[in-house]
């Protein structure tokens, strides 16, 4: 397993970014005043809160993504082992099996489009 390499790289990258930000924060001249550190709002005083209202569609998209992504992840082992199925003469068996699975996938997608879950105004 290349796990030590992955951790080493992640650690190095974090250190690199941290050092750059640290050096940059020390070099630049800092002039503080009250108005400057206000939240950016086209020159007006900030009225709305940070946790502004967000369309429910984003949450719906996230939920649908999880469902579909898990279905796609189930296809990976099938795709990589199709060769072995073919070698044993079970190609069509394997394809029909995954076809039934994909029918559920397609039905889900069709249902979402029909129930307007994917429509944005």
């Amino acid at each position, binding site marked *: 397993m*290349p796990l*030590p*390499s*992955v951790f*080493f*790289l*992640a650690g*190095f*990258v*974090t250190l*690199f*970014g*941290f050092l*750059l*930000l640290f*050096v*940059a*924060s020390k*070099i*630049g001249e*800092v*002039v503080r005043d009250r108005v*400057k*550190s*206000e*939240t*950016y709002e086209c020159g007006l005083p900030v009225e*709305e*809160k*940070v946790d*502004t209202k*967000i369309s429910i569609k*984003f949450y719906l*998209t996230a939920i649908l*993504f999880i469902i*579909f*992504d898990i279905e*796609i*992840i189930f*296809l*990976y082992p099938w*795709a*990589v082992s*199709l060769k072995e199925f*073919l070698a044993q*003469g079970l*190609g*069509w068996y*394997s*394809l029909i099996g*995954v*076809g039934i699975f*994909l029918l559920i*996938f397609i039905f889900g*997608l069709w249902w979402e*489009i029909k129930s307007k879950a*994917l*429509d*944005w*105004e």
Partner: protein
Amino acid sequence: MGADFLEVSLNALKLIFFFLMMVQMVPLLVWLERRGAGFIQDRLGPNRVGPFGLTQLLADAVKFLMKEEFIPQKAVKFLFYGAPIFALIPASLALCAIPFGPKFEIPAFSFWGRHWGPYEFILQGYEVGVGIVFILAAASLAVYSILMAGWGSGNKYSLLGAIRASSQIISYELALGLTIVAVVLIYGTFSLNEMVTLQRGPLSFEFFGKMVTIDFLPNWGIFYQPIGAFLFLAASFAESNRLPFDLPEGEAELVAGFHTEYGGFKMNLFFIGEYGHMIVASALLITFYFGGYELPFLTSQELLAIYQEAFGVGLTSSLLNALTHFAVFMFKIFIVLWIFIHVRWTLPRFRYDQLMELGWKTMLPWALGNLLLTALIYVASKTY
């Protein structure tokens, strides 16, 4: 990471080299982008600092470094500073899992009264058995850095931009994932190295029990997956937030998206992350569909044999072989990156509902159809 001291340190140096290569490609790409944009729009672009304006980005980096350190009042400190640092990690983790060239060997030698080697190195940060799955997993971590930036800035424009960006990225990941399933299906492996090996030589495949060989075409994935290659390219535009899919930065609506409150070097780190994603996407496109680091009509073993005839068997020839293929891979990557840049200055931006509709209602069904068609033809041609 390795067996003994030399191997461990060389592997560590290799990882750092790949990361710094990614960082160093960013100024070059920004220069290419500005200069290219200039020529596309019939003007000159940056041409004052250095030859062809090449050192413009060096000057910019110094300017970034001299900028004032700034944090808005309402920002969450940990998230605000953590986001740009975290933005570097996914792209560099993914880039190091992509093979940049064939193996090279260091024969056994003795030094300091000890025997070292023989060693075998790959021009790749680390070889992961599940290759492509690891890259998908690492690259999709990018959403976290965007959300950290959006929430940590304490600004509603940042938050809206971040939510738009993450929603767009996850939507296009479905189409991307499905096209990769079709790629895995035709190669029958997750390992990127094996995919490159399978694309050697002239185009030849088994079709209904007959071997078909077409001599004037290389055995590249694009001839098996033309629809898949196009879908992959389009989805990777959306994944790396490039035009025509750069809705998160729609400046007319959202100021500058999730990095509204960022400036100076923090902004620069986001840039490196974003361009890193472009580099990863184009490297993957090359590996899947355009033969990876292999030359079209000369496999790496044949080239190695030529070098061995000229320089003898040993370190020189295998190192030269590896470096040649590295250069070939970089050349191919730059062609794809130029497509990225050219598209940015050619196509207008989508509207948000059009973007989501394209992702869910057009690209997802097309990717699904591509997968089904591939599987049907594959099984039928191998069975009869």
